[in-house]
Structures are given as structure tokens and as C-alpha cells.
């Protein structure tokens, strides 16, 4: 059963349509959101995080309609969200930052200190827990952001470009963390990096021009890349990504695109 169900989602930014009657659902596991710049990935993540208000459509998270004011707090209590860009108050230590977000998430006061330490340890910053956030490197700040997202043991986790700013070793560690989180929660990761998708995701959703251009497993996307003709890329997933994107733009729908690609493959 899906934990997130999106029906007819429509999002506008002034006159630009960011998401156009989007229908998609997500169940437990790690879902990669791929797509070119401006495809609508961040818009989708922000609507799912209950930060942005859609112009139309319905979003259900954990069985609750996020448009229902009375149930919104309950949904938000079970969410974890790492935005693409986030700031912090200059005086914050790592512990204070994560504890403050835990407080905003209405975690019980007695459970907070141990939950904070656990979350910070999971992102490998246990030895820097009392350091000021402003003294940390960009990659470490990103990891602090991940810690605040997971501090409440959320059932739905939304990461927008989480590996931006992480060095290769940290990326590998983060992908391991993603896999671990995906065993008990629905994790949606918006990323530009097909390596993230290949290494950590159980499913991939390719978004283009506000619509779903392709859905499948990383393996099926790679299989498209193996057989697609006339597309470039460093690895099969990249080639599959390009092929799916081209087919979607040529045929206008995900289903038609896949049928075309599968026909090509045969």
C-alpha cells in the first residue's frame, strides 16, 4: 500500500507550470527523483513536505489528506525534510540545531537528547556534536541537515539534493544510510546524480516538464540505456535517462514513451 499518494497535482510559480496534473504514488523504500533542471522535482518535494501549497490536486501522506488543516500537524510529526538550501542561526551548535528542530517537531522533551545524539552519530558527526555549525565545512553542514531530518525517526523522508556538497566518501556513506532508512520508511531523494540512484534507490521516477516521464527500477532504466540507440552517457543509467527523456518529449506520455522504447529495444 502506498504511503504517499499524489493525484492530479498542479503547481504553478507565477505563470510557469511546475507540475502539471501529476499522478504518482510511493511506498516504503528509497525512491530516486531524477530530471533536468526545472523539471519540477523540487516543487514536488516541497509540496510533499507540506511547505508549498499546490494550485490543485490532492496529496495523501500516511493516509491523511495534507489539505486538511486538522490533520496537518499529525502528518508533519512523521515527516523528515532536508531542503536544497537551508540556513541556521549563527550561535547554534550541532546539538542545539538538531534539538531545536526536534522541539519544533514536538518530540517529547525526555526523548530528545538521546534522539539527537543518535541522529548526529548516524551522520558521522558524533565527535563534532558540540561544535558551532558555522565552523563546519559545507559537507558537514549538509550532514547536520540530514541529522535534523531523521531525528524524529520519520516514516516519510524527503531529501532534496542531499549529496550536493558531500565528498565521494561521504556520498558512499550517505547512500548506505539511505538504504538503511529505506528499510523502514518511505524515502524520496531528488538528485542530479544517477550514481545516487544506482547505488541506493529501489525505484526511480523521472520527472520532466512537470510530468512523470518514466517510472521503474534503476535496473530497468539501465536496461533501456543498454538497448537505446543514438544516446550518449557514461553508464547505462545515464543513457537510459536520456533515452526515456527523449521518448517522453517525443510522445508526451510516460506510458507511450516506455512502449516506444520497449519496441525499440525489441
Amino acid at each position, binding site marked *: 500500500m502506498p504511503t504517499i499518494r499524489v493525484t492530479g497535482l498542479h503547481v504553478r510559480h507565477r505563470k510557469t507550470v511546475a507540475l502539471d496534473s501529476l499522478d504518482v504514488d510511493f511506498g516504503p523504500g528509497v525512491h530516486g527523483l531524477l530530471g533536468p533542471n526545472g523539471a519540477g522535482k523540487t516543487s514536488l518535494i*516541497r509540496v510533499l*513536505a*507540506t*511547505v*508549498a*501549497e499546490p494550485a490543485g490536486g490532492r496529496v495523501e501522506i500516511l493516509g491523511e489528506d495534507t489539505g486538511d*488543516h*486538522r*490533520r*496537518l*500537524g*499529525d502528518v*508533519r*510529526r*512523521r*515527516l523528515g*525534510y532536508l*531542503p536544497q*538550501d*537551508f*540556513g*541556521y*542561526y549563527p550561535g547554534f551548535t550541532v546539538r*542545539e540545531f538538531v*534539538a*531545536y*528542530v526536534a*522541539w*519544533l*517537531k*514536538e*518530540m*517529547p*522533551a*525526555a*526523548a*530528545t537528547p538521546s534522539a539527537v545524539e543518535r541522529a548526529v552519530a548516524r551522520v558521522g558527526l558524533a565527535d563534532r556534536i558540540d561544535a558551532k555549525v558555522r565552523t563546519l565545512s559545507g559537507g558537514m553542514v549538509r550532514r547536520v*541537515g540530514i541529522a*535534523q531530518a531523521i531525528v*524524529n*525517526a*520519520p*516514516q516519510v523522508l524527503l531529501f532534496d539534493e542531499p549529496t550536493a556538497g558531500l565528498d565521494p566518501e561521504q556520498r558512499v556513506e550517505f547512500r548506505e544510510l539511505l538504504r538503511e532508512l529505506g528499510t523502514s520508511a518511505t524515502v524520496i531523494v531528488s538528485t542530479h546524480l544517477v550514481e545516487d540512484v544506482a547505488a541506493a534507490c529501489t525505484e526511480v521516477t523521472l520527472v520532466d516538464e512537470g510530468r512523470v516521464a518514466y517510472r521503474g527500477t534503476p535496473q530497468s532504466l539501465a536496461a533501456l540505456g543498454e538497448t537505446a540507440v543514438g544516446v550518449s552517457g557514461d553508464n547505462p543509467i545515464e543513457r537510459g535517462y536520456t533515452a526515456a527523456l527523449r521518448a517522453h518529449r517525443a510522445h508526451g506520455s510516460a506510458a507511450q514513451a516506455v512502449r516506444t522504447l520497449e519496441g525499440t529495444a525489441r
Partner: protein
Amino acid sequence: MTGWHASDDLVTRYASGSLPEPDAWSVEKHLESCGGCAARVSLAVRQTAAGVVLADVREAVLGAGLGTALGTALGTALEAGATRTAPGARTGRGARASAAPGAPAPSTPVTSRARLWASRRLAPPPAGSRAARVLWAAGPAVRGAWPVAVLGVALAAVLLARFADFAGARPLLLAVAPVVPIAGVALSYGAHADPLHEIAAATPSAGLRLVLTRTAAVLAVSLPLLTLAGFLVPSSGAPGAAAWLLPGLALTLASLALAGYVGFRAATAVTGGGWLCAVLSPVLTADGRLTARLAEQVSACLGGATAQGGWAAAAVLCAALLAARRSAYDRLERR
């Protein structure tokens, strides 16, 4: 309180300790404001092994008298209960214990878990950390340059009156004061004002609650400072130093109510700019001595029972509108 209530299944799972932590926190949040569900949970807990522990606690406390050390009695009773519950008992979070046969052994001893629960209910978190978090939640307007600016306005009024013999200090202060909290609220909420806005907006504290927390902080800083400054300058024909309080509150609430439609910055411009235009435009266009005209105009807007009654009514009306439209503040990012 909302129309939602915990289902029987939720109550049973909460009492047995099998509900995941975030779900349990949600239930607990609801229980704070719903006596009916609290009674159902209480009944369900009493029917588990924890009920025996709770009965022992009650007996120990009543037996020892309310003035005795509750913690000691509780610890003793809990340990007794734990001994009775084990082996094979499973504890969830807190004291939600189940005596389900064949259940796995607890990873954490019953007594420490139960004590954690007890400490959670009986002892508040350290005052320092809670105060610090409330201060952070109070927003940038309380920590940043804004309180310094408010202090500057108050000092400037006092210095002008005391050392420059400026007769219009009180009227000018009364004319400007209602705009100060409005500006403070605009500086407190939104992506332009708060580096943590995007993260905070996805938490249950976001929305009207955080807006009101920050508004309260802004008012707590500006009201006493500016009113005190008003008392320290001569009246010069203007109303009393506290005459701006109701208009200030009404305009702040009007700004908040309008923000639900057009966002904070536009609402601030409309209410703050509107007030300044209403007070200062007639002063600048009429003949006569500027300070005397200002005192007259401020008196017309703020002085007397009728004007104050009107501001009080406006404040109540805006507060009611704010309450009625509270869902409009759930997602303010587009505003």
C-alpha cells in the same frame, strides 16, 4: 481540539507499546487536549501489566501521604511491578507495558524505561534549554538588529525631549510606535527573515502557532520599551504614554490577518503605511505649528474613550478573523 479521535486499534496499540514512536507522539499530543481519548487510553493501559504497576504507585503514594517523596514511592512500586511483569513481558515506550506471552525480552530494563516515563511526566526539561529554544523560536526580531532599533527609537525620543527641548517628542513617538511591532512581525516570519524557515515550515509548529509566538515576542520587547519612553517625555498636548497600546495591538493583529491573504511584507506595507499616512498626511498639509498639529492629530486618533473603544473593537475583530482563517497560515511560503 480537532474532530479527530484515536481509534480503538490505535488506543490498544499505544497501551501495548506496539505503536511506532512518531505515531505514539501524535497520540500523546492529541491526548493533551482530548479528555475522552485520554480516559480510553487510561483504561486500556490499566488493562495491561502496567495497570498493576500504576495501582501499586497509587497505593504507595496514598499510603505514604502526598507530602512524601513521590519519586521514592514511584521507584519502589515500579521495581515491584517490573519484577511481577518479567519474564516474557515487553515494554514499549514509557510505561506502556504488555504481558503478552512469548513476547521477546525487553532490550531495556523495565525499571529504567518506566522511570524515564515517570521523569517525563513529573519533571520538566531543564529550564535553561527550554528557555533557549523558546528564544530561538521567538525569531530573528528578538535576537537581531530589531530590538536595538526599538531601543534606538525609544532613546531618540527621550534624548530629543530632554536635551533638544523638542516639544513634539511624545506626539511623534505615539505616531510612530504602532508601526514598530508591525515591522517586527514582518521581520520575524518568512524565508526572507528566518534562515530556518524552510525546515521549520515542514514541522507541526509551523503556521499560526509560530507566527503568534513571534508576534508575542515582538510585542513583549516593543510595548514596555516604547511605553516607558513615552512616560519619560513631556506630553506636549498629546494623549498619555500608553495610548498607543490598543492601536498598536489592533494594527499588529490587522497586519497578521491581512498576511493570511497577501503575505507579511504586503500586509506590513498596507497597515503600517496606512497608519502613517492617516496620521501624518493631515499634519503635513494643514497650516500652523507642526508639533501642535501633530499633537492634535495624534489626540484625534488615539485620545478619548471613543477612539480607544474603536481600537479595542478592531483588535477583537482582527483576532476573530485570525482564528477563523487559521488554516491560511499552514503554508505561507507563497505569501
